[in-house]
């Protein structure tokens, strides 16, 4: 998604290395996707359509 637009930054965060950050977002299992610092999230796998839906939702807040 980041490759499609400058608006998106996609960061793969290694949860053990960045434990504080993982804790801040309540990450207990992986993968866990956080959208805009918690405005949205997906626990588990994030298929393309689901991710689009969650991003839309998160941006409405």
């Amino acid at each position, binding site marked *: 998604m980041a490759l499609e637009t400058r608006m998106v930054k*996609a960061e793969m965060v290694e949860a053990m290395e960045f434990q504080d950050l993982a804790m801040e*977002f309540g990450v207990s299992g992986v993968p866990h996707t956080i959208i805009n610092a918690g405005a949205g999230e997906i626990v588990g796998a994030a298929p393309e359509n689901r991710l689009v839906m969650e991003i839309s939702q998160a941006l409405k807040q």
Partner: protein
Amino acid sequence: MEKFLGPDVEKQVREMFQGLKEPVAVVFFGSKVVHCEYCKEIHQLLGEVVALSPLLSLEVFDLEENAEMAARFRVDKAPSFVLAAKNGDQLEDTGVIFAGIPAQYEFTSLIDGLLMVSQRDSGLNEATRQFLAGLTQPVHLQVFVTPT
């Protein structure tokens, strides 16, 4: 330090790298300030990966000393690295960032990411591309993963 990639893995990765098209620079940010337990390891691992194709290169920066570069690539933590599109001498930010060591399953994500950026194609479906093209606000995705 011993090599991370054994001959079998190197062979596999070389085969996958047949799919590389355009140059990609792996832009690494380490730090002398923040605790960077695996900086040396990641640096070495990335070096071994880029050595497997002439289309790949590694650029090394420091998060604090090269703050301008970090800002340009939207990097705010170390160790992190960006898969930047290399066009001529120009490094173009893609927003594709890995924070922490890409071991085990994440190693596959790294190889997939390199292929994607090299092909300059996200592989996403048309509806998703249209949605992304219409974004007017920044979206920061953080996918938390572990090496196991």
